[in-house]
């Protein structure tokens, strides 16, 4: 394995790169498997009705396919966890460029893209398989940004023209390409991941805060510019029942599902809202079905499992053998965290409606395989953790 010089000034040239030779982090793995298993059960229940209505009474349609994806994902995860995560530094640029190329292909060879519900987010491979280039772009950003920030080191990252501007420019390129689809939630997630990585890598908080403020101001100006439209959106956000049959349909259906679950829930498989009331009960609104079927008690526990999983991801990041491991683990954890939070916020009405899936739960092949692959990378990082004290 070649050693990589990643130190400024060559002060520690001879130090040995920590190799991921330990065991994978068991708590993290356990939490993952718990989420994955729960996710499949929930998907079975949530997709039951849609499968029945949309796939000629085949209620098993979604869960069987998702099971296959999960198997592929676990295989990918296994190999990724065995692979020394430092190898990704070599692939950092190619992976990122590949995702840029894929995203850009929407303009060059639009014929390979598939449009579903007015959004062109998938590339079709053969007749039965589609994948989302944005999922690959997320990983591309994580790998490239982590590698770059790790190589540059905190001191150089502190400088805005090194630690912020080039990275923001790259985010801008990705965001621009995503706007073509359009895919706002992916843009937000990728921007979030990128910003968190450079922040962790040492970029100036104040500069980032300034940029954040500028973004908020820009958003406010946009709202001001399209006041009527924005106000309706805001009104529907705060009270979806005010336009239940129109713009508030999705929001109100989701909230009805969540609220009517009550403390104990209606029981597994007993959701009524999934019978075509909820949009995409197997995808973006699977959490609403869970709330309805499981009720507050069990849903809260699942939320806590997610929180623990995220927390453990950051724990691994902070204990990784080197900065690259730290940033990779933190980047991957951040991606999962942001996706989970956006989804939960949307379903419970804290955020306005936007299309965001729930990791490990929502139906979707690319997302699941990519996520598990990324988790594999994170597990590889966990193997670089020095043994805990006392061991």
């Amino acid at each position, binding site marked *: 394995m070649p050693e990589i010089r*990643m*130190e400024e000034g060559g002060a520690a040239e001879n130090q040995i790169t*920590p190799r991921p030779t330990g065991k994978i982090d068991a708590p993290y793995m356990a939490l993952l498997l718990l989420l994955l298993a729960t996710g499949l059960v929930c998907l079975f229940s949530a997709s039951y009705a849609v499968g029945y209505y949309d796939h000629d009474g085949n209620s098993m349609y979604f869960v069987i396919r998702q099971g296959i994806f999960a198997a592929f994902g676990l295989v990918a995860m296994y190999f990724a966890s065995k692979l020394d995560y430092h190898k990704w530094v070599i692939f950092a640029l190619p992976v990122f460029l590949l995702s840029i190329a894929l995203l850009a292909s929407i303009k060059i060879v639009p014929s390979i893209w598939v449009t579903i519900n007015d959004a062109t987010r998938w590339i079709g491979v053969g007749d039965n398989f589609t994948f989302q280039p944005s999922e690959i772009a997320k990983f591309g950003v994580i790998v490239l940004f982590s590698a770059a920030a790790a190589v540059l080191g905190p001191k150089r990252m502190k400088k805005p023209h090194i630690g912020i501007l080039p990275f923001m420019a790259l985010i801008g390129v990705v965001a621009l390409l995503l706007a073509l689809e359009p895919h706002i939630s992916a843009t937000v997630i990728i921007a979030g991941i990128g910003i968190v990585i450079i922040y*962790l*890598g040492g970029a100036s908080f104040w500069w980032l805060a300034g940029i954040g403020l500028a973004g908020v101001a820009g958003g406010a100006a946009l709202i001001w510019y399209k006041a009527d439209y924005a106000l309706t959106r805001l009104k529907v956000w705060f009270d979806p029942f005010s336009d239940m049959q129109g713009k508030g349909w999705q929001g109100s259906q989701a909230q*009805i599902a969540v609220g009517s679950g009550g403390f104990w829930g209606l029981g597994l498989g007993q959701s009524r809202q999934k019978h075509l*009331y909820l949009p995409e009960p197997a995808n973006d609104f699977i959490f609403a079905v869970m709330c309805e079927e499981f009720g507050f008690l069990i849903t809260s526990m699942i939320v806590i499992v997610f929180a623990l999983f995220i927390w453990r991801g*950051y724990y691994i990041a*902070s204990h990784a053998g080197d900065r690259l491991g730290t940033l990779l683990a933190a980047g991957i*954890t951040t991606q999962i965290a942001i996706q989970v939070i956006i989804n939960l916020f949307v379903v419970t009405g804290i955020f306005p409606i936007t299309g965001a899936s729930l990791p490990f739960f929502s139906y979707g092949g690319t997302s699941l395989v990519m996520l598990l692959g990324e988790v594999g990378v994170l597990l590889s990082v966990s193997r670089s953790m020095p043994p805990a004290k006392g061991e």
Partner: protein
Amino acid sequence: MDDRRADSGMIKRIKAVAIILGVVCFAAVIVRLFYMQVINYDFYQQKAENLQTREITLYPTRGTIYDTNMKPLAISANNEMLILMGNKLESDEQRAMIAAAFSEILELDYESMLEKTRSKSSYIVISRGVEKDKADRIRAFIKENKFSDRMYFLEDSTRYYPYSNFLAHVLGFVGSDEQGLAGIEYMYDDLLSGTEGRMVTATNVSGDELPFEYETYYEAVDGNSLVLTIDEVLQHYLEKNLEIAYNDNNVQESAIGIVMDVNTGAILAMATYPDYDPNNAFTIVDTELAAQIDLIEDANEKAAAKSNALYKQWSNQAVSLAYHPGSTFKIITAAIALEEAVVDLNTNFMCSGSYVVGIHRIHCWRSYNPHNNQNLAQAIQNSCNPAFIQMGLMIGKETFNKYFEAFGLRSKTGVDLPGETTGLYNLNQEIDLAVYSFGQNFSVSPLQLITAVSAVANGGTLLKPYIVKEVLDPNGNVVQSNGRTEVRQVVSEETSVIMRELVESVVTVGTGKNAYTVGYRVAGKTGTTEKIAEQLQEGKELRIASFVAFAPADDPEIAVLILLDEPTGDTVTAGITVAPVIRRFMEEAMPYLGVEPQYTEEELKNKDITIPDLRGLTLADANDRLKRLGINGSSNGTGEKVVDQLPAPGSVVSNTATVMLFMESSAPEKQVTMPDLSGMSLEKARSTLQSIGLYVRVTGAKNGTGNIAVIKQDVPRGEIVNYGQVITIELSDLDQRAD
């Protein structure tokens, strides 16, 4: 420490990010979940229930209304209800297209149909009670356009009156939601309608039922059925005769009749003509009136005129009409006078053509030929007003008042029919008493009068009239039964017995002669009154002619009241216009009720003969049989046996006829034109018919004295009839001019 590892600053930053993305945000989600699922649960639960369920009303089948012999008169037919799923319609063009098809097939208004299709509801009731042929046409429409996911049929039942106008005013009718709006249907709506059921089904967003069981089902309870006291046969006789009387006498308002069981108070028949068809209750029957209303331009006025016309059309006047009973009331006055013993059968009443009370001079109907001295029976037979004024004054105001009330004439009878009236009564001065005693200036309902007269006839007990005999549950078990309900004893049995004889004598020798029914003892009293208020308004003579009767006179079973509101013609007195109607009714009703006919010797002598079949007999045998029947025969030709005969076998003919026996060939197949016999005497009519080879059968007042003439012939003038046919003629005494 390996400085390629994360430095302390980076660790801190990770912690900050982990706290925000791993704790704060998830805590926010849990707080939000607690708020939605625990604190605000009811709000969302309610929303969910409204959204996810579809409630279908299950309509019960309305109970059947039967006549006393279980003949169904109002039934609820099973049919279908058309439901449209408004949420499935895609465009206004589609709505317009569906509305057009529905309005055409169901014969409903297009605009209101279009309005219905605009609803977004998944459960729009387009029409209830869709009959099979129309439902089939809609099914074809659904198939043709592949609309089976947009509309469907549910089971339904709607009211149907199989005999249309029959008993209409008593039965009433139901509205578009099957609710009783008039008559028995209204009175007994609670019992008939049953209880609606409910089915709550979980549905998906399209309103389709969910593929798993999630239902709440409350079964509909069908309504109870009613068995009326109405006898379909008597009702038919009554309605038929009312219609004839209405037409014969060119009645301007209506013909009303009631038949009551005098011993129980059960109403056996009740009708008002013109009637209407409860299947189409909202169609104005009087086409002339409907055309007039159509011409009204102002929409409000038009609606008001229409609803006035309909209310009048639906009004069951047998209970709702308040009228002056006139001379029919003299039965009551005489009964009071007898009961109070202020008169007896020998009391003399002097009629000088008028009678003076205070400053008023009241004339007798026959002031041109005063009745002079009369006993009680004669006073009733003559319907003499001065005699009854004297009787009234003898009774006195207080006692009269007491009896008036005791006869139930100041309160509702309590019959189980809606719309009962009690009329006006205001007896203050002596002149009031004088006029009241012959039935003028106060009003009662037809039902009140017949109930009071029934009390006089049945031995003196006032009964509560009733029309529902039994209430049956949906399985046919009797859950309630009604019978004779005594209100009070008003007069004694003795008085009742005397009154029966006196009232019978009105028919045998008095002003009610035209009601005389051969073979049966009919008692009855005429009454003709002026509609004083209406006359002042319209400036012309308007009368109500009525006749109240009971039979058999010696042991009364039924009482009959027939009333013509505004008969027109030369003579409109009840003795001329109504008495024959009573007779025609009794001729049919008495045999139906199984009353054994009793004939006087003269009646026996003049009995009609039913011609036997003599064909194939020898002449001697044939003549022998005719002789035994009391009718003559005459032979024609010289064959061995009778080949043909006239009148035909089975014909009923007067015994004055001569039967023609054809020994060689068939009867000649000749045809003659029917002449007009009206106004002819019996002899004249008989010889007229004989001269052209027709036989005669006589009904009506054939035994009477006075101006007896033909008033009816069963074959109209000018019609072609076969030689040897029997013509039935009806006679009446045209001198009956008493009020």
